[in-house]
């Protein structure tokens, strides 16, 4: 008899399907997939390192970013620069300031620009896109009208090369870190708005929305409780990718001379733009910030791409 029960137990075991997971939402699943993605891990590591540097950088920086460690060593007009040495790991810049400290402090400014700009673009863009999408999902003539008008404006913004838009904004606001953040952020608004609206529109036509309506769920709840959450994933992916774009775009603004000129708040883009002038004699001064920008942007891009894959419904098994 014992062999029999054994067998039965075994069958029961086999039958009790492989699904041991209970209640793993799509976010949880995506998170699981994300953890398994090499791209995500590399991206996250880069970002992690960058964020740590950005947070602690200014505290651990050996010198003030504006302190001129003069001692008659750097002569810009004679191409005399100081390279890496024991007390200045990355050497001195063209005004004899410690490059290493400036890179550390610059990380914070760069991250700040990226995050604030993206947050700005995300918030406003998502509000506009969400409102527009919700208006459409809720239906009705008024909704369509609102959507039409809003999307026209968004289209206009999209029709402009982002850099030009940013430059136009920077021209009005004058030069400062805030300007850079706003200019770069505003450029992102139409992207987020379009994306969220498009996603909401697509979700709005799905069966579960119909099902919710059939249940008698109120329209507002359908828009906010069903359509919106399901439309967020492309926007979140975009936000991650936008962080990279924002950092690069900020660098471009700096190159165009619209960056934050305050030396006490060094920002990698500005540092890169300035160092290009001394590229012949001190190429490293340009390469450090350039690498900083590239690697950081790469980190966000990698993470964004990995998230895109993790959140892709097509890849959902």
């Amino acid at each position, binding site marked *: 008899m014992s062999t029999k029960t054994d067998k039965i137990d*075994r*069958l029961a075991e086999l039958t009790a*399907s492989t699904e041991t997971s209970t209640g793993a939402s799509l976010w949880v699943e995506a998170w699981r997939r994300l953890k398994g993605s090499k791209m995500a891990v590399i991206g996250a590591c880069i970002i992690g390192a960058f964020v740590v540097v950005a947070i602690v950088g200014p505290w651990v920086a050996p010198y003030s970013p504006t302190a001129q460690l003069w001692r008659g060593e750097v002569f810009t007009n004679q191409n005399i620069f100081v390279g890496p040495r024991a007390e200045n790991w990355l050497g001195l810049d063209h005004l004899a300031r410690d490059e290493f400290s400036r890179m550390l402090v610059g990380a914070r400014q760069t991250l700040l620009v990226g995050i604030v700009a993206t947050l700005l673009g995300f918030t406003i863009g998502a509000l506009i896109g969400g409102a527009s999408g919700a208006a459409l999902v809720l239906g009705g003539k008024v909704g369509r009208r609102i959507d039409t008008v809003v999307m026209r404006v968004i289209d206009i913004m999209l029709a402009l090369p982002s850099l030009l838009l940013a430059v136009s904004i920077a021209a009005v606001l004058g030069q400062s870190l805030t300007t850079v953040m706003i200019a770069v952020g505003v450029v992102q608004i139409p992207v987020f708005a379009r994306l969220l609206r498009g996603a909401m529109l697509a979700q709005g036509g799905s069966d579960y929305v119909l099902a919710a309506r059939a249940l008698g769920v109120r329209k507002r709840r359908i828009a906010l409780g069903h359509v919106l959450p399901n439309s967020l994933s492309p926007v979140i992916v975009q936000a991650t990718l936008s962080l990279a774009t924002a950092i690069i775009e900020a660098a471009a603004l700096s190159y165009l001379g619209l960056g934050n000129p305050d030396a006490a708040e060094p920002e990698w883009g500005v540092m890169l733009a300035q160092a290009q002038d001394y590229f012949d004699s001190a190429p490293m001064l340009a390469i450090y910030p350039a690498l900083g920008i590239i690697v950081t942007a790469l980190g966000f891009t990698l993470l964004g791409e990995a998230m895109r894959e993790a959140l892709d419904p097509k890849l959902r098994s």
Partner: protein
Amino acid sequence: MALLSVDELTVTFTQRGRRDVKAVSGVSFDVDQGQVVGLVGESGCGKSVTSLALMGLLPSRGVKVGGRADFDGTDLLTLSGRRMRDLRGSQLAMIFQDPLSSLNPVVPIGVQVTEILTRHRRLKGEAARKEAASLLDRVGIPDPDRRLKEYPHQLSGGMRQRALIAMAVACAPRLLIADEPTTALDVTIQAQILELLKELVDQEGTALLMITHDLGVVAGLCDQVNVLYAGKVVESAARRELFEAPTHPYANGLLGSIPRLDAPRGEPLRPVRGSINDTIAWEDGCAFAPRCDHYTLECLQGTPVLGEPRKPGHQVRCVNPVLSGGAAELRRSVLPEPDEVPGADAAADGTGPEGDGPVEKADPAEKDAVETAGTAEKEAGA
């Protein structure tokens, strides 16, 4: 010798970081010239994979194919890419399930038809166009000259499937594989397409491997039917044989699941419980055991082998085949009482361990009874 002789075909999908999926595990069947052979089974049982393996269309990476598939003496599974290409379209042809997605949306129908003529029959230009038009005409597409210039989206579903068939028969292949060719179509259109296929087989003597999950389609079309379950043939019989005496509990259950247009109303259906996910690996025993009402411990003693419990040539892979008499009666006799269904189902759906349904139902007495009846029947048949 059969035109196509598939022997122990095995297809395994391997993917890094995942368990191997044995989609087809040791499928054998023959297709003769002018014969229609059916391959039936529920979704995911390996029908399409089998057909793709035969056509050499499985992805090149992450797939292991084993066994033999002799087509007119050559093993399709080991053929070089070039020679396979030569065979495909000319000797072997295939029709797919979804006619819209199976046609290239950006290439006119005409080009899609003529390219195969150019490839295998070296027809070019006007000659190819003419031949294409006559092919379309033959599969019953009105106004073929206009249709040749049109794109797939401009055609109706039935018309698309006809166009696909036209391509498949363009070079008078000796074997035609149809993978659920009518599933995406309406019944009235399905009837048209089936009629067309029938006609082709009759007129050309083409061998047809018909893949479907619709037993009704099989009943009207096939000479020989293979029922697949979880990548293995569980029952193989001539058409009438199968429908009259479905001997594998799965085949039997399938027939009991279908509401019949011609059956009297009012009786509940007698479905197989659980779903195809509720299987065990064939290595551990009968994959169907978890869903089976007849299952006994023997079912778990390794893979059951194909036997011929009822009649020679009627192969069944089951330890406890259903062997009672007349089909309709038999179907009723082996099914659980209706009120048991939900519970049993719940067990299959994951509450397994405590769901003792299947175990309890494996009542030796009942089994014996069935078996006795079966033996009796066997004797009677003989």
